[in-house]
């Protein structure tokens, strides 16, 4: 556990030594601000629903940029060799990396808190869906970050990691957008695999264990795949 936190802490701090974290945070905040305020006064409703709707989508595109370098860059520069030859297991390295980027993501989410807070000053805000929305963002974010980490474990090229992670993330987000074109059985199966379907249900303030388990399962599967990829190095 201590090793996981040491690796995670180093990763977290190194984000702020480079430009990536600042760029991603700025872009997310600017896009969110634009889309949120554009329509907020038109609706004239004291609700943060729109914020979660937009944030859920923006993060699908933004989070792969945070994870692309996690392992790919360490492999390219060779620092992975020093990291792994310290007395740690591959699982601790993967979990440490995940904890590090999750910490940065938590900072990013905390920076959006002024939105519901300012909405609350304008009218009577129902905080239930807000906390549900944040839990949803956290869980969907975990899944996206784990997928990004997995993509980063497959290559030593950050851009390839970014591309693979983006493709997978957008794929899982878009799954429930074309359901009308499909037969009912396939539609409900695809809907169930869609990130947005589970996320939107949480953002409505409905806490369903199935949604939580869905995101946790995706996270675990992706982390396990990253672990396998890192470990396979030994036998290549």
């Amino acid at each position: 556990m201590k090793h996981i936190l040491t690796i995670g802490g180093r990763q977290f701090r190194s984000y702020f030594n480079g430009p990536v974290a600042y760029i991603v945070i700025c872009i997310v905040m600017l896009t969110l601000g634009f889309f949120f305020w554009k329509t907020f006064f038109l609706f004239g409703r004291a609700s943060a629903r729109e914020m979660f709707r937009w944030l859920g989508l923006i993060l699908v595109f933004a989070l792969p940029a945070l994870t692309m370098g996690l392992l790919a860059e360490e492999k390219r520069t060779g620092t992975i060799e020093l990291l792994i030859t310290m007395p740690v297991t591959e699982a601790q390295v993967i979990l440490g990396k995940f904890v590090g980027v999750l910490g940065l993501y938590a900072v990013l989410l905390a920076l959006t808190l002024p939105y519901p807070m300012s909405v609350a000053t304008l009218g009577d805000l129902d905080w239930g869906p807000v906390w549900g929305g944040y839990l949803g963002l956290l869980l969907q974010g975990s899944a996206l970050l784990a997928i990004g980490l997995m993509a980063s474990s497959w290559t030593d090229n950050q851009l390839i990691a970014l591309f693979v992670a983006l493709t997978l993330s957008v794929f899982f987000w878009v799954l429930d957008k074309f359901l009308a074109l499909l037969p009912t059985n396939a539609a409900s199966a695809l809907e169930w695999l869609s990130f947005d379907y589970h996320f939107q249900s949480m953002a409505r303030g409905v806490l369903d264990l199935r949604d939580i388990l869905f995101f946790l399962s995706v996270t675990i599967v992706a982390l396990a795949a990253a672990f396998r990829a890192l470990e396979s190095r030994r036998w290549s």
Partner: protein
Amino acid sequence: MSDVMIEARDLTKHYGTVTALKNATFEVNRGEVVGFLGPNGAGKTTTMKILTCFVAPSAGTARVAGADIFEDPIAVREAIGYLPESTPLYTEMLVLEYLEFAGKMRGLTGEGLRARLRKVVEETSLGDVIGKSIGELSKGFRQRVGLAQALIHEPPVLILDEPMSGLDPNQAAEIRELIREIGRERTIILSTHNLAEVQVTCGRVLIISRGQLVADDTPEELAARAGKPRFIATVQRNGQSPTDISEVFSKIGDAQSVKERDGSAPNELVVEVVPKGNQDLRADIFQAAVGAGLILVGLEQRGENLEDIFRQLTTGGAGAEP
């Protein structure tokens, strides 16, 4: 614990169809500084990656400080301080930050960590750059940071992959001195393709070629095994032609071959005499010079150097002319 710190048994590694290492078997005892020598791609780095449990061998196994690389890789890594080839460090981190990280990963905390930090910073003379980011440092300083992180947990075994490559002669001399200092109490394996390095730093040499160990000896024994002594005489010319002078030394009974070349001073000629067997020809050379009225200003005995042996062993025994 026995005195054998590293024990490699039949290490073999295939990458696809390429065999990087074939049946490498060797032992390294406590307190030895062993040079791992070979041309690029011979299998030095592969051996080191196997010993640090970064890759697994295709066949064979190894024990480091009594722990097996398959059964207890964590114990193996705990016993090793490792400096990989080309010193990969997190360039965005500060030197102190990085060493702290390395110490924590090695299980050090609090006052123990601070004490070790002070010690390694002093040992590697990093005091002046402790607050700089690693990316700003020169190659020599980066190498020292790499050594410092390898030393932070006082490992009994150090594995250094090309610790002196890419350094200018001054930096290399400093690092060499540092390694010699460190090596007094520790077992060290270092790889290099610089032969002079091995002769001054290492008590033992393992030469590896095309994945196979071809020699395991002290530098001196290797030299004695593979080569005859040579005698280098420097004489003043005083107007005589080079061929006349070498003629004088050719008459020595046990001399096999005599070669002459210009000396460093204009009036001097350097003559190299190789004996037929292992005879000491210094007395004969002196007498021959005196007999011919030549003034002998220098005379030394030289073993065949490591470079020649290295070339012989790693090019499939094709005779390298000294």
